[in-house]
């Protein structure tokens, strides 16, 4: 698989490259959003590992500038465990988020999940998404709120259950769990700007 690593820390890029080298081909690196877009356009990777905190607008600006057609799958990486950093990345189109302290096997799993076009929800991301949807919004319509089953799946993910175990516990198939998670992701990306800003304001993220 062909990867591009976007991170403003040279040492981190070198570390990831060394870790992934036996399994995947790292075809490009970038330290800023503009570099990232150039490298992605040139190398056309399958998956981009994208840092949340970048100079000149952050990872979100890269996601927003990616072409609609044939865009690579994006896995967000961050040291941050703050919802205000993570949720906007998912909303902007990243398929998953993992912390930089993740070990190599888990990172490889996450890359494989994202490459297949599936959402990769770490327990923490699942918790943040659960929280994002629990904010009351008066004009929330059915398309934008979670079904009880989706909520249940997210809750299990937040508690660290793997898809297979969730499927067993809820008596559904693995594929159905994946579908639920995919729907959650789609709904998160669909939620109106108003709702997210309402949510952010409630948490004191904007004034």
């Amino acid at each position, binding site marked *: 698989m062909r990867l591009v690593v976007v991170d403003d820390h040279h040492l981190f890029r070198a570390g990831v490259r060394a870790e992934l080298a036996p399994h995947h081909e790292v075809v490009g690196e970038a330290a800023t959003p503009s570099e990232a877009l150039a490298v992605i356009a040139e190398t056309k990777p399958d998956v981009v590992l994208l840092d949340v905190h970048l100079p000149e607008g952050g990872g979100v600006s890269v996601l927003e500038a990616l072409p609609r057609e044939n865009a690579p799958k994006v896995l967000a990486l961050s040291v941050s*465990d703050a919802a205000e950093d993570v949720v906007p990345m998912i909303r902007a189109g990243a398929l998953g988020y993992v912390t930089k*302290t993740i070990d190599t096997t888990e990172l490889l799993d996450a890359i494989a999940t994202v490459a297949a076009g599936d959402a990769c929800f770490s*327990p*923490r991301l699942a*918790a*943040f998404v*659960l*929280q994002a949807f629990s904010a009351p919004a008066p004009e929330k319509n059915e398309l934008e709120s979670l079904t009880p089953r989706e909520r249940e799946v997210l809750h299990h993910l*937040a*508690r*660290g*259950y793997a898809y297979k*175990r969730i499927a067993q516990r809820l008596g559904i198939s693995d594929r159905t769990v994946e579908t639920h998670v995919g729907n959650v992701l789609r709904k998160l990306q669909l939620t109106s700007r108003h709702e997210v800003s309402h949510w952010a304001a409630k948490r004191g993220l904007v004034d």
Partner: protein
Amino acid sequence: MNAASDPAGRITALAGALLIAALAVALGDSGATLPLALLGAGSVLALFVLVPRAYAHSRRHPALLVGVLVAALPLFPILLFGGVGDGRVVWMLPNAVRALLPLVVIALAALGGLILIADDLRARFGLAQRGLTPWQRLTGTTDVPMPTPWRALGGLALVGLAFILGLGYVGAGSSGLMSLALLLVLGGGTAAIIAVPLLIAGLARSDRARLTTAREDERRRVAAHLHDSVLQTLALVQRQAHDPAAVQRLARRQEHELRAWMAGEVELGAETLGAALRKAVAEVEDDHDATVELTILGERALDREVEALAAAAREALRNAAVHAGSPIYVFAQVSPDGAEVFIRDEGPGFELSAVPTERRGVRDSIIGRMRSVGGSAVLDSVPGEGTEVALRIGVTG
């Protein structure tokens, strides 16, 4: 803060008004007891409210001193010419005091007025920093209602009355000194014209200075913390580079500490559920060399119930670390009505009924503890697949 809910402003205005009233009565009909009473009350208020406020204000806004000088302007002719308008000689001390006293009172009243004006201006400068136009600052907007500027109007009235009284007193009984009165008016006007922009500049400058100081304090605080924690750990990591396990432990502990510090828990004195859980996780990671993934949604201060919840969670976490090992997942969800904590491992699992009664760890320290505060503890263990302990208090979704 508006004038109605501002006792200091009202007392300032009252002191000024009493002083003016006393003088007005005294100048009209000397020797009465009413002005003495008013003067007494006004002086007490002036001494305990006006003077300290004036001192504080002039320290914060040096431009106010110019205002004080304007208020004291009527004193100058006496000092310069040795007498008031009607030709009385006041170099003799008793006479001088008697002649000066009303002027001091007038100056105090005017000072009260200036303080009120300064208060009002400061409130409006607060609005200026929120991007309102000068006109909006006068009238207020729908979002930021600005009440009628009672303080400024009261202050202006006090200054005006004091000025008129001062002129009247200095020029009393002498029409030949109209030129002196004119001089005073011109001088006072000029001083006021100089004083007001200075006052405004002083207000803006001192606000900026306060902001800069606050930023600098914050930077020092962050630098001091990083020095004590992160740099210290980095030094230790360099020294122990040959021992990967030690380096890992150091890095993990530092990560926990830094995250707790960023979450503001150190300043809060660790009196929250989140802080208690972070502490428990850090302890277990250190003692049992386990990896715990902790996620906390919401926050709540420690009370009896939450303390029991945190203690039960710590016990469940220790059990997981001892009997199952890494990875361990802890998920806490807190709402205003309740809280739940899930501790999950992927160890061998067990049957609760198969645990001998003499090993009371689970029964007492987890289930018993939760029941004693009206909460619940549910153990869900599948042999070969792992164990999850769900702890709840209050109403949870």
